[in-house]
């Protein structure tokens, strides 16, 4: 319940920001925020559930807003620009932070899984993922208020509040999108302007970073530098009039933080070989990697949800991958084979090099094999844990008299569900996440008592399928004989640890 007022204030705050026209209104409304939020803060545990629902409602809105690729970026701007004049705003976002970030993975989960298209998937998960990398550049502005506002915050890395800052702005974009629908046209226009501004800033950052890693700065810089200088002056004047009542000082804040915001703020996407194929086709049609422009590639690819950011950074990677080996194929090729590796293996002849590579390959194959096996095992074990939990919740609901019956049928369904996992891991995991997103919000007290009984009652039955499964999976895996006793101890541990919770 408490979360509602907090959030509605947040909303109105966002609204103010979106209208940005009057900075006076902005600053007058803001001081209200920190106090009211601090009141809600201590009551967190109760309010979390409510806020989760709340979030789930706002979040989808944010999702819908993303098809305009610009939305999150633009909101990022608004937020960061306002940070120039009011620190109160940041405070508010910090105290909301726990609720936001805490729920993030769960929310991103359910929404991610719901989307079967890889593209939509990445576009929203991106909004939540992006913040993490954000902190590099934003650190400086945020460091001070973060520690002040959260005394109990131990010695956390500075990036945590920033994340929430971003998440918040993404949820705001949902609010705005729904409220500002009428204005969308000129909003879009403005967004486009800002986006192009972002673009250049963005790539500059990216390219500098990438190049520093790869250490072939020179060829890249040659064409990057003129780009920077031509675009910078052109865009800045456009940006400034949009955000009224700005002092010179704020301008710098806007530019610096906007580059920080938009670089990771762009929705992340996961490239696939198919998508890359389309990309390469487009690049080739445009005369190759050096001549193709992100804009042109984007147009040719015609992939929904794909933005100029994605294409830009992908093109960057493509150029690096493509032209590096070409240039190193000649003289530097010999240099690139690490001296120490070669000499220590005492390789002098071609046959020995071949032999060394074969050996390397053999070890790599082995590691791959073992990782695959281990992964399958882990998935099964987790699946089993999840299954037990689900069974148990069912039992709790249906009452104790049914407990016996269902636990006796445990063996076959668990085998079944394992097969399901193997055939379509995504599907069964989806169910898991849906079931869990509700579960996690539930009262920890019931949850703990749940697991305790769960372990005690099902511990016996559980051994059988697990042993069977792992033996089937990998012949050379031996299941420890000490398992039953250890598990019994674990049960005790779970029981005793759950007890303080129950009291």
């Amino acid at each position: 319940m408490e979360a509602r007022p907090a959030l509605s204030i947040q909303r109105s705050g966002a609204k103010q920001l979106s209208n940005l026209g009057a900075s006076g209104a902005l600053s007058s409304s803001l001081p209200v925020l920190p106090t009211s939020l601090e009141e809600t803060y201590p009551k967190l545990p109760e309010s979390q559930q409510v806020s989760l629902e709340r979030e789930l409602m706002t979040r989808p809105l944010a999702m819908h807003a993303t098809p305009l690729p610009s939305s999150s970026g633009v909101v990022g701007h608004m937020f960061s620009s306002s940070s120039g004049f009011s620190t109160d705003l940041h405070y508010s976002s910090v105290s909301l932070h726990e609720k936001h970030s805490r729920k993030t993975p769960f929310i991103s989960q359910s929404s991610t899984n719901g989307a079967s298209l890889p593209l939509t998937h990445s576009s929203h998960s991106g909004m939540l993922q992006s913040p993490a990398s954000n902190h590099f550049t934003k650190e400086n502005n945020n460091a001070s208020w973060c520690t002040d506002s959260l005394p109990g915050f131990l010695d956390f890395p500075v990036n945590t509040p920033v994340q929430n800052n971003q998440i918040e702005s993404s949820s705001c974009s949902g609010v705005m999108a729904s409220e500002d629908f009428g204005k969308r046209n000129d909003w879009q226009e403005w967004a486009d302007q800002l986006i192009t501004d972002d673009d250049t800033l963005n790539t500059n950052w990216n390219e500098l970073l990438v190049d520093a890693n790869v250490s072939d700065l020179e060829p890249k810089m040659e064409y990057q530098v003129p780009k920077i200088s031509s675009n910078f002056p052109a865009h800045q004047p456009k940006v400034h009039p949009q955000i009224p009542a700005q002092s010179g000082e704020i301008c710098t804040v806007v530019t610096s933080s906007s580059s920080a915001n938009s670089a990771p703020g762009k929705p992340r996407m996961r490239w696939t070989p198919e998508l890359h194929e389309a990309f390469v086709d487009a690049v080739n049609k445009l005369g190759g990697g050096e001549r193709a422009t992100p804009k042109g590639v984007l147009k040719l690819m015609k992939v929904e949800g794909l933005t100029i950011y994605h294409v830009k950074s992908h093109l960057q990677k493509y150029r690096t991958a493509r032209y590096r080996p070409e240039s190193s194929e000649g003289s530097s090729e010999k240099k690139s084979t690490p001296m120490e590796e070669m000499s220590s293996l005492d390789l002098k002849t071609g046959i020995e090099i071949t032999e060394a590579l074969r050996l390397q390959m053999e070890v790599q194959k082995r590691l791959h094999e073992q990782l695959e096996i281990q992964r399958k095992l882990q998935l099964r074990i987790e699946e089993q844990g999840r299954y037990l939990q689900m069974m148990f919740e069912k039992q709790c609901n249906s009452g104790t008299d049914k407990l016996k019956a269902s636990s006796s049928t445990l063996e076959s369904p668990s085998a079944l569900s394992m097969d399901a996992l193997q055939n379509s891991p995504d599907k069964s995991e989806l169910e898991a996440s849906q079931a869990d997103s509700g579960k996690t919000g539930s009262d920890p007290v019931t949850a703990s008592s749940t697991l305790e009984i769960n372990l005690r009652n099902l511990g016996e039955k559980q051994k059988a399928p697990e042993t069977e499964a792992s033996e089937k999976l990998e012949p050379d895996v031996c299941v420890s004989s000490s398992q039953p006793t250890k598990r019994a101890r674990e049960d005790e541990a779970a029981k005793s640890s759950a007890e303080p919770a129950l009291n």
Partner: protein
Amino acid sequence: MKFGKRLKRQIDETLPGWRDKYLSYKELKKLVRLISAAPPMLSGSLEYGKAEAEFVCLLNNEIEKFNLFFMEQEEDFIIRHKELQQRIQRVIDIWGPNGIRSSETDYKEEMGKIRKDIVDFHGEMVLLENYSNINYTGLAKILKKYDKRTGGLLRLPFIQKVLQQPFFTTDLVSKLVKECESTIDAVFPIVEEESNRGEREAVTVAGEGIFRNTVAALLTMQEIRNGSSTYSHFSLPPLHLPDSDFIQSIQLNSPIPIL
């Protein structure tokens, strides 16, 4: 040995650009210690919820870090995979038996260059899979520790989310690894005399190459699986490598890479 130490060793052995991308196990452990050192808290109480939220928040940041890095690498692999295939095709088209300028020496020379690249590429991808797995293991370990120390029940629901994170879905990378293997088998068939070259002498791997890294990863994996001090039904059975003698025979002569 403790997991934290193993992870640290693994990080020391990793490729330079990867070092800060692993789980900050130490930080998390510190936080768990702080939370559990505080006076016993009632589950569901104010402080408890706050502490747990902090812990979860830190975990989420770590996951974001993994996802970001993993997806960047994956994107890069997609590109390089395609480029390598094209490079091989080009060589075959030009110098191959039916090529426009068919020449066995040129063909062999060019393929020799590619061989090194493709083996390294394979290695990098496998190492990314290892990255994925070791971070998952780390998360599971720290969550287990958290639950044990605080009496919380975070592990089960949290790990379910982890399983669906981009960094844990390695299907594509795995597919690329397999394609890479079949390419190598097809393009570089095992010559009789090579395969008959008897037993291997102990090999020492120095530097911080991919090879060294792979060996280290295998050894770590074996160690981790060798048993936990707190065995539970989430624990994996010990790992028995089919030819562990062979792996053991490859010694990592120095934990500190000589640059």
